[in-house]
């Protein structure tokens, strides 16, 4: 009896540990939903780089603009400068990983690799461009 309880506890524990250490969203989400939830804060609802954090005055809050402009994801000129790998690295490691501003945060512990690849494809749709 005690043995069974012990084993049960160990099982519950390991599931718990897995649930806590497993990175990425534990539920299936489309790239568009991830973009809306996370990226729009800075890149804006339309991806043009004018989210509330970038331009607080646009939403009526009296704070200065962000010191760096978030990339305009709809601009083929800007987005063509990046390869798909560049984009994945920027999303995963943030600006620090690609010698850009650290105001672009790292999402590698928040999103799974698959989600980051999906987001990269989504950005290619926004810019209607293939990259270099």
């Amino acid at each position, binding site marked *: 009896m005690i043995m069974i309880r012990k084993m049960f506890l160990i099982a519950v524990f390991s599931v718990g540990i897995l649930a806590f250490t497993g990175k990425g969203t534990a539920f299936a989400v489309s790239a568009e939903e991830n973009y809306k939830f996370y990226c729009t804060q*800075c890149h804006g*609802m339309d991806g043009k780089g004018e989210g509330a954090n970038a331009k607080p005055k646009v*939403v009526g809050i009296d*704070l200065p603009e962000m010191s760096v402009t978030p990339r305009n994801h709809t601009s083929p000129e800007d987005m063509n400068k990046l390869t798909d790998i560049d984009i994945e690295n920027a999303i995963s490691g943030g*600006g620090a990983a690609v010698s850009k501003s*650290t105001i672009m945060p*790292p999402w590698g*512990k928040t999103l799974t690799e698959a989600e980051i690849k999906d987001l990269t494809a989504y950005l290619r749709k926004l810019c209607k461009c293939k990259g270099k």
Partner: protein
Amino acid sequence: MNVSKVGQLMASLSLTVFVVVFSWNISYADGKGIFASKNCGSCHQIQGPAAEKTFEDQQKKKGPELWYAGSKFKKEWLGEWLANPTAIRLLKYNSVTEKNTEKHPALSKKEADEVADYLMMLTAKEVPVGAVTEAVNPQGKNMFQKKYGCVGCHSIKAGAQKVGGVSGPDLSDAGKRLKGDWVYAYLKEPKVFKPVKRMPIFVSIINDNEMKTLAGFVAAQK
């Protein structure tokens, strides 16, 4: 001292203890009663653990969780804020496009103190008490503003000016509001306190020592 004197002393001592414990309990119970009668629970979760798993679960919430309020808030601030609430989140709860113009329900000063007594009882074992030294420090400032870009989503004071993003709670006076130990636990155990949120997970990006220094910096902003 004879036996009856000792007895008297004991009796009055235990009476004092009884009265103190009893009246404190009344205050606690009153706070709980006020919380229920004002329907605060319709917007705030007071029983852990965190239940939200999807974006939708989070979007359905009408206010921040309070089930670890006693570990998170400084009591004095809590009593004052509940009587005289001002915006903490500059954007409307769960929105990234609309300014927060909502008036939070206010309590009388007496009710506010009683509710604060009650909320301070709600603690989380994941918060290591005494782990963090609350102090303005140049390393913390550098991490917040430059190294880890917290300032992209949170406003903070920079000299006389306020700078930073608006999608995360205003941290310019976080030191009045938040306990450093909780800020550290929040960074270290993101899934315990807020499994679904717009803030990135920084575990294993920011190391443990840095997290403590950063948390101490945040909790010293006044």
